[in-house]
């Protein structure tokens, strides 16, 4: 058998994406630990350009941009991971168990998928943001997870519908296994690669969605994420023209682009390995 892991390690795309992602993760985890309080406002240093003391300058509140950036990376990744893990779990559950059992269970899961698919994210968040006090990262992750899974559930459903027709499923049934057992031990293992890809994509889109929501000010306004930085940089009114302090909004913009690119390059690398039609050696 061709060892998939070996192929992944050989894939230039996958390894490149992974390297970038790991360095960003390091920046997001080790950075905040080494640097000081990201919310500390040094009012004597307002809107200073990059310098040796403040690598990326300061904000118009006198906060250190680099410190904020490291925290933002970490927090954005946390939101992405929460949404990615939960979204994948929901997608697998709704997409695999219902269709496998069939009949009413399938109809209910299909209905739920279709309903969630048409749920409008931004209006929903505006309502939630206005109702819920103290919106925190975990909550945002949960909401993003709850709204991001439907497309994945749909494609998992179609795969389960074909896989369940394989004779080994019948054979497992004839070995006295129940439906949940069969889904877990016979059907899902054959979709592991796909489920991993779903996870990667859901994580990436959740980071992007959170940033978009933060930027329009309907996400958390207390925890630093990449979107939060963009929001404040854009809304700053203490300087006549907000683009005068370019060091405040360009770094989070670049980091967001690099982070998402890394995630999608990882996905593309995996796709080449898992999709035999794209496989090259």
């Amino acid at each position, binding site marked *: *058998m*061709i*060892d998939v892991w*070996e*192929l992944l390690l*050989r894939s230039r795309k996958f390894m490149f994406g992974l390297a970038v992602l790991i360095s960003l993760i390091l920046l997001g985890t080790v950075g905040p630990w080494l640097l000081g309080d990201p919310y500390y406002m040094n009012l004597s240093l307002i809107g200073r350009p990059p310098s040796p003391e403040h690598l990326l300058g300061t904000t118009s509140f006198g906060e250190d941009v680099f410190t904020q950036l490291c925290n933002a990376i970490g927090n954005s990744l946390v939101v992405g991971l929460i949404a990615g893990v939960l979204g994948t779990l929901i997608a697998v559950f709704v997409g695999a168990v219902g269709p496998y059992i069939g009949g009413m269970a399938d109809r209910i899961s299909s209905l739920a998928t279709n309903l969630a698919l048409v749920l409008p994210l931004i209006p929903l968040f505006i309502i939630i943001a206005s109702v819920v006090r103290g919106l925190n990262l975990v909550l945002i992750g949960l909401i993003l997870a709850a709204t991001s899974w439907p497309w994945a559930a749909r494609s998992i459903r179609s795969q389960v519908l074909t896989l369940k027709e394989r004779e080994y499923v019948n054979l497992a049934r004839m070995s006295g296994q129940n439906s949940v057992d069969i889904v877990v031990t016979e059907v899902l293992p054959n979709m592991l690669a796909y489920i991993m890809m779903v996870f990667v994509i859901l994580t990436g889109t959740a980071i992007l969605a959170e940033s978009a929501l933060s930027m329009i000010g309907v996400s958390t306004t207390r925890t630093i994420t990449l979107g939060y930085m963009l929001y404040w940089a854009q809304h700053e009114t203490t300087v006549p023209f907000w683009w005068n302090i370019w060091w405040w909004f360009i770094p989070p913009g670049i980091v967001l682009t690099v982070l998402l690119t890394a995630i999608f390059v990882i996905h593309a690398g995996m796709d080449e390995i898992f999709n035999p039609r794209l*496989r*090259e*050696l």
Partner: protein
Amino acid sequence: MATHILEVQDLRGYYRGTFGVVHAVDGVSFTVDRGVVMGIAGESGGGKSTLAQLVSGSPPPLLHLEGGTILVDGIDIYSINPEELRTEVKCKRMSYVPQSSMESLNPVKRIRDFIFDVVRQRTGKRIASSEEKAEVLDMAANHMKTLGLDRPVLDRYPHELSGGMKQRVVIAVSTLWNPKLLIIDEPTSALDVTSQKRMIEALLNLKRAGTIESMLYISHDLTSLRQLCGECIIMYAGKIAEIGDMEETIDSPRHPYSRLLTAAIASYDSKGRKMGELKSIAGSPPDLRDPPAGCRFHPRCPYVMDICRTKEPPMFWAGERKGGASCWLLTSQAGQ
């Protein structure tokens, strides 16, 4: 004009990948004369399909030509450029129908639209006007009659046809340009016996009608080979075990492998009564990443001798017979 439609010289084709190097076809030479149906038989994993892929001129990504030449109608297909290969060989001289190619029919297209697409691809014409379309359809319908397909088949979708009919549609499309050589890989293995019979008759009709001149027919099923082919090759582990006249090879096989193979295959007389006890061949084909030394069949051969384990047997050509076999048992006969 070359005397042989196909000439294969010392052909080597290996799969290279993370799994290692698989010596799938390892030093195969043979010729197919004009007008001959050549069958290739052997167990799965013996290199039959790999050989067909190499001869077709479009090996899959991991398969590499490692040596030898293939002359189709005198043209060395691996020395010319891809465009020339397409226009001069694939569009004129040779057609290849891979294994389970019937699954490649587009499920949302009617057979007629599929045929239009193929004609457009080959000729570069647009085929938009109704006259042009009618002309193409007439030609196709005419051609499909030889294969036992009626005109209404053209208006069907693939899922409305049986497996055997789909397979014949694919063959019809691949022979629209009267190729001199048709390479066809396991066309009957997914079909039930009644469709198998119809398929074999259809292929014979194609040849009788002069649509195709020669054929390279690959199948693990010696019984279908026996119905169709004039000559045959028995392949084992990437090498030719025996080559020769079809009937002689079946009736008096010279290589032990051919002998075991015929004994393992269920055969019945015309009333369906079995002929003799079936015996399976012990063991399984070798791992071609690391083929056994000497004769590749020696670990399974009931007549194994010391020399078989160390030295590879050459092809021993029988004097009065056309065929040859690669087995040390034949030294005494060929020695003189």
